[in-house]
């Protein structure tokens, strides 16, 4: 037998071995699933970050130990194909019992394929018995009361997702490199100190002809830094735009405010925000807008950048992969005392409303919905969530869970002021967002500048804002129409129901109406303004 034949045989045997192994695995699971005394639940997610699968696996094994007749299987799907995978599974009726909610999903999908959990979340979580959360409704055991992310869906007036974690963004830095370049310089507390650090890194790189960047950027990472800085400059402007006195305008109000002439693209605060963005853009690698998240991660992990801005979700991966010690600090926004940028800011940005995430929903076709709910109760009990946080290195979602020292710097900052808005206007709509994305090179590129960027926006943005606002009005009609039909159900259902559940049904109808009227009147206001603005010349709009 010559070497080539041996290698061919080896390859074929390896292939056969893998095939037999997979076959045994599949049939083993099938047999296990068919066994009368064993019930199996599966859950799917896209979190491939270091530590997450291990944490979820540990919880699954703990649950199996508590319930010997249950098997829990985890399916981890890469983020890139997750939306397609989930849709295929849901439409094909082959979805897991529990699925992570988020990317590629909307209210329509939630309503059609997932169980509403409103009844369940009102009852205490039995796995919290004996703790101070023992008597609390399940939803009240979460740090955000399940109001964030995929917990409560205001358009559907129901709870769908049960959250395991929450996320904040911070600046990570390479402590070893920091000491080498900056000595014992402390972490920056405000923008001025941060700017000085970045300039010292650039000077160091030039002096030593070392390709070290102050900050690793990408189209995913840069916004986590510059958006926060931008928010600080639009804080006062944002309050000024608001016609209502509730101190927190909505996304569409920014676009409408611009069309109404409540603010302009030449507003000093907006210009300052753009200047700040251009300045910070110079501390990132050239062309960062075309780089992906992985590229920025490589820059940082390989020690080619001192800092990177990213979410708490990257903390375990960085700690596992980086051959250096990692430090973390808050994005240092300009303080009120800053000689130029201080005039636009109210103060530190609040993270009080950072909602929970890593939310799981239960599919309608699950053969064991009660079991799936019980498993989610288990993993979001105080003890379960503490174990998840400890192993994963992610923030907890449940009240009273003590974070580990590594995760403590990521806890949301509750004190602070309402944020401003970011440059992307993505709360207004996709057309405006696309224009701003496409024009950012004009702002940050070496040949660009603030004036060039603003000129482009002045020329093209108003029409796109108009189309985005029209889209909001149009889209809200689908929702309003759906709520009409649901409202009819809640009007008629009490006739069939026992007295004790009538009050609950009437209460739900009341909430449907309240939410619907608010949404519809806002939509009517937008429509009113779009019609009015179409009928008057732009300069006269504000005086009307």
């Amino acid at each position, binding site marked *: 037998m010559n070497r080539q034949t041996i290698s061919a045989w080896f390859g074929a045997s390896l292939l056969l071995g893998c095939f037999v192994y997979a076959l045994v695995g599949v049939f083993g699971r099938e047999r296990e699933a068919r066994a009368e005394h064993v019930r199996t639940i599966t859950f799917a997610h896209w979190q491939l970050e270091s530590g997450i699968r291990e944490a979820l696996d540990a919880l699954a094994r703990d649950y199996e130990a508590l319930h010997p007749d249950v098997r829990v299987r985890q399916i981890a799907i890469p983020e890139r194909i997750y939306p397609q995978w989930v849709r295929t599974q849901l439409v094909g009726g082959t979805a897991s019992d529990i699925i992570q909610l988020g990317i590629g999903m909307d209210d329509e999908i939630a*309503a*059609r394929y997932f169980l*509403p959990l409103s009844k369940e979340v009102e009852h205490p979580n039995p796995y919290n018995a004996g703790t101070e959360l023992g008597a609390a409704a399940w939803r009240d055991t979460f*740090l*955000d*009361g399940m*109001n964030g992310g995929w917990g409560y869906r*205001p358009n*559907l007036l129901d709870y769908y997702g049960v959250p395991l974690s929450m996320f904040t963004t911070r600046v990570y830095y390479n402590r070893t490199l920091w000491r080498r370049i900056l000595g014992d310089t402390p972490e920056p507390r405000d923008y001025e100190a941060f700017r000085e650090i970045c300039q010292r890194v650039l000077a160091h790189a030039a002096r030593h002809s070392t390709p070290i960047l102050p900050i690793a950027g990408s189209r995913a990472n840069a916004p986590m830094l510059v958006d926060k800085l931008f928010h600080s400059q639009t804080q006062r402007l944002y309050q000024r735009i608001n*016609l*209502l*006195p*509730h*101190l*927190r305008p909505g996304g569409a109000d920014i676009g409408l405010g611009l069309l109404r002439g409540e603010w302009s693209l030449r507003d000093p605060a907006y210009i300052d925000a753009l200047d700040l963005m251009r300045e910070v853009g110079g501390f990132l690698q050239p062309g960062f807008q075309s780089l992906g998240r992985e590229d920025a991660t490589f820059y940082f992990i390989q020690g080619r950048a001192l800092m990177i801005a990213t979410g708490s979700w990257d903390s375990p991966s960085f700690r596992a992969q980086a051959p250096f010690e990692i430090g973390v600090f808050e994005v240092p926004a300009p303080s009120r005392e800053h000689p130029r940028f201080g005039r636009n800011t*109210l103060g530190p940005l*609040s*993270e*009080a*409303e950072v909602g929970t995430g890593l939310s799981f929903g239960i599919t309608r076709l699950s053969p064991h919905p009660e079991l799936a709910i019980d498993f989610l109760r288990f993993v979001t009990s105080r003890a379960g969530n503490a174990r998840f946080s400890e192993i994963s290195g992610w923030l907890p979602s449940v009240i009273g869970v003590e974070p580990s020292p590594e995760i403590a710097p990521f806890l949301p900052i*509750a*004190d*602070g*002021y*309402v*944020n401003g808005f970011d440059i992307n206007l993505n709360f207004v709509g996709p057309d405006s967002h696309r224009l701003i994305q496409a024009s950012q090179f004009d702002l940050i590129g070496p040949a660009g500048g603030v004036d060039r960027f603003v000129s482009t926006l002045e020329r093209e943005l108003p029409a796109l804002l108009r189309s985005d606002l029209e889209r909001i009005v149009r889209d809200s*009609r689908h929702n*309003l*129409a*759906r709520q*009409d*039909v*649901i409202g*009819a*159900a809640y*009007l*008629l*259902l009490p006739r*069939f*129901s026992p007295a004790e559940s009538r009050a609950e049904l009437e*209460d*739900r*109808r*009341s*909430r449907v*109406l*309240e*939410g619907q*009227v*608010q949404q*519809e*009147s*806002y939509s*009517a*206001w937008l*429509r*009113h303004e779009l*019609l*009015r603005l179409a*009928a008057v010349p732009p300069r006269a709009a504000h005086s009307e």
Partner: protein
Amino acid sequence: MQSRRLLLLFSALSLWSAAPGAAPGPAAAEDLRAAWQKVALNLFADAHREFLALPGDEARLGVALTRLQLQPRTTANLEASVADLRALASAKDPDLAPIALYHLARIEHAHRLRSDPPAALAAYAELRRSFPGHPLADEALVRMAMIEVYEPAPPEHQAATLARYAALAPELASADARRDLHLLLADAALRLTRDESAALAHYLAAEQAGIQLAAIRTTVLVSIGELAARLGRPELARRAFDDYLAFAPRDNRRTLVLERLAALPPAASPAASLVHAP
């Protein structure tokens, strides 16, 4: 050919079973409940199939309403629902006719590709005339206000419309409708006529009527506090801000509200809760 005949027979049976006047038996009541329950769960296609298989006018109402949500949404489906709802409205069943009338108005107001405000106003008005005191007649007034208040018009006309609907609010028997009308008028008073006093009165009335959704209540409490402070009513501002701080421990406006509170003149006596204020 065979299958076509079967389809025709099935359609004829469905139409017969859904014909008005066929009274539902006790078993049908349970089926109706199950179908409405599916509507409440957003399962419109499933509910539609179940309503189609049931006899009686209520099932026909269910068919008409769920058809509006079937995908793809078509003009033919919408017109078929309008026909069903018109038939139910003219049958004058005191339980179903007001619902049919209300949804006929809603179709003109919010379901058609281009809404028809005059047709919607006429349908809402007919409902209010035919069934005064019905909760949906009260809701109809809120929707009429929405159309008229946000109609493009000169400011003086807008002020008169706001005042006209404000005067009608006490007539509403339904607390939900009162709440919704006051919230609508408060926001409109600020957006259209910048009348802060009127807006404050409407927000207070909405709060008294009972706001259910936490996000809306939080926003209304901040608005009451802010307006009261601007209008020189520090005691009211303090009560509203205190209620807000107790009600929304994780809201990002807390720092701003605490600053507002600190800027108010010192309180003469401890502030009572806004909800229980006379």
